[in-house]
């Protein structure tokens, strides 16, 4: 199980690092575009989530769930499905 908090923390860290922001500047309910995260960086964010949490994600997720909290929620759900499925194999 990957918690929503863990995912939110990972995404926030990525954005802080990418955009030179301080953690207190990050509002998880704000639209991701508000941090200035471009399309290249968004795709890289998806890649780093895939890598860190061993998941398979679509790059369009960032546009479908465009805030930190919504993205973390959606990924937690996918993680439950993907990791849950793998456990039965």
């Amino acid at each position, binding site marked *: 199980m990957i918690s929503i908090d863990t995912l939110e923390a990972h995404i926030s860290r990525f954005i802080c690092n990418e955009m*030179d922001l301080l953690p207190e*500047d990050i509002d998880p309910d704000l639209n991701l*575009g*508000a941090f200035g995260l471009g399309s290249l960086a968004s*795709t890289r964010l998806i*890649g780093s989530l895939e*890598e860190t949490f061993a998941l398979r994600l679509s*790059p369009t997720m960032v546009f479908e769930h465009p805030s930190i909290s919504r993205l973390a929620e959606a990924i937690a759900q996918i993680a439950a499905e993907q990791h849950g499925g793998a456990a039965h194999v």
Partner: protein
Amino acid sequence: MFDKSSFNDHELSSASGALPVHETLALRAWAHPDKVLFTFLDDEGAKQESLTYLQMYDNARSIARQLESVSQPGDRVALFFPQGLDFIACFLACLMSGRIAVPINLPNRRRVERCVSILLDSGASLALVDATEHAQLERAFAGTEAAALPLLEIANLEAAAATASWEPRAEFDPQQIAFLQYTSGSTSAPKGVMVSHANITANLRMMRDAWELDARSDFVTWQPHHHDMGLILGQLLPIMLGNHTVVMAPSTFVRQPLIWLQAISRYKARLAGGPNFAYDLAAERYSAERLGDLDLSGWTHALNGADVVRAGSLKRFHDRYARHGFSMDAFMPCYGLAEATLFVSGGPYRLPVHSVTADQATLSSEQRVAPPRESGNAVTMIGCGEPSWEVEVAIVDPATRQRRAPGTVGEIWLRGASIARGYWRNDAASVAGFHATIAEDPRREYMRTGDLGFIGAEDRQLYVCGRLKDLIICEGRNIHPEDIEHSVIEALAETRPQSCAVFSHDDEQQRQIIVAVIELNRELKRLLTDNPRALKANIRAAVVDQHGIPVHRLMFAQPTSMHKTTSGKIQRRKMRELYLAAELDGIDEAI
């Protein structure tokens, strides 16, 4: 002339270097029909589809026949395709049938305005589209001036006749326009570079010869096909060479850069590359456990072009991948632009990357390369290779139009067989950009690149120092500051700022920082006091939404700090200087 039983390697090479690229495809479909030309990898890096030379030729001919029934020679045909193997078949079909291809990026989410302005500027009479994109394109164009454009899906490709007879068209004129490359110009005024069949052949030959490539030089490419590097280098050069090229989507690369390296290793590719950021991404995502058996020792041409080449990026990448057989000498910085079809300089093959360390002050005040002084700052620049022998590079003082000596900075002017014919239906820009003359010799015409650079006095390498105009190069794309400024001002429509200046600079870590300086007024001051976070978030979101690029720094400056020309145009260069010297008067916060 082609009435032969077979072609030997020399004949194939000479013919490929002279024929229009679609005729080279026909020749190769006849000479080695079953050799695989392209393999497409899915977003996991698994093989999704392959096409042989003959299959590609048949697909292209089949589409050309369909085009003949719905359009006339000389018509512009827009091409809307995701990365895959259908795009290039459609592109070649346009070339075969004398239609002018107009490759355009898909109008995903944003970019609709830009697509529409390209469609209108080119006067496209129809678009070939991928079936999976049809509905989305229709929605995107509904209610715009492009709503009536017929969108055609390519159909029945497999049903094409499987014969590859050699039928060169007797009346074919290689000087006619093959396609329009829309990477120049702002959103409101796109400029379509007119690239002829002869331009393409010359440019492919220049790359082949400068880099010593042949049919065994296989590629892995992820650059998008609507970009000159993806199209000319990634998808047309393979046809001239007769090689096998592995294609993947740009998003696959950006999401999982290691898939790119694994493909280079697995398919034993000799040539692969990208803009500088590609090497940063691949170094950043290094994973020893995932890359245990990675072998990069066969990668001899690691091209780096379309953006500033940074020494730090090359070093970081090499530090990571040397243990996998990657050689520092494999790096091949290169220089090119759509107005020259693509390639201008790069190589020679097998030589180490060249660099020059110069005194920063002398370079900026006297435009001259001088050895660094102990007291001053030094700047290191990477050589973008030697110019191809088929292109003449002149370094010219843009003000006096006089030639400058090696080691002196001026605008890069070019002349040669691969220089495009001009901008589509834009005589003013074509005359200014493609028919420039040097003061000493008014008879020879040059194309002005707008880039500043110099030829190394000792090594004959081309060094690129920056832009004459204010163009920003970000993530390998050309961004017009006026487009970003427009979005910023629109996002602040309620407070109506008078002006905005957007420019970029590199920070100490050689990271690109994009800055927007916005002119303050009373309303803006009030909003900045009330809710600065929302205000800035709003601006950033608008720029990302419309252009896909970040604005790192937002600064609000007093009207007295905004430098403008007498006609009221913002002086970005001056603004940038003042910003870097911290001499702008205004409000600059971290976020």
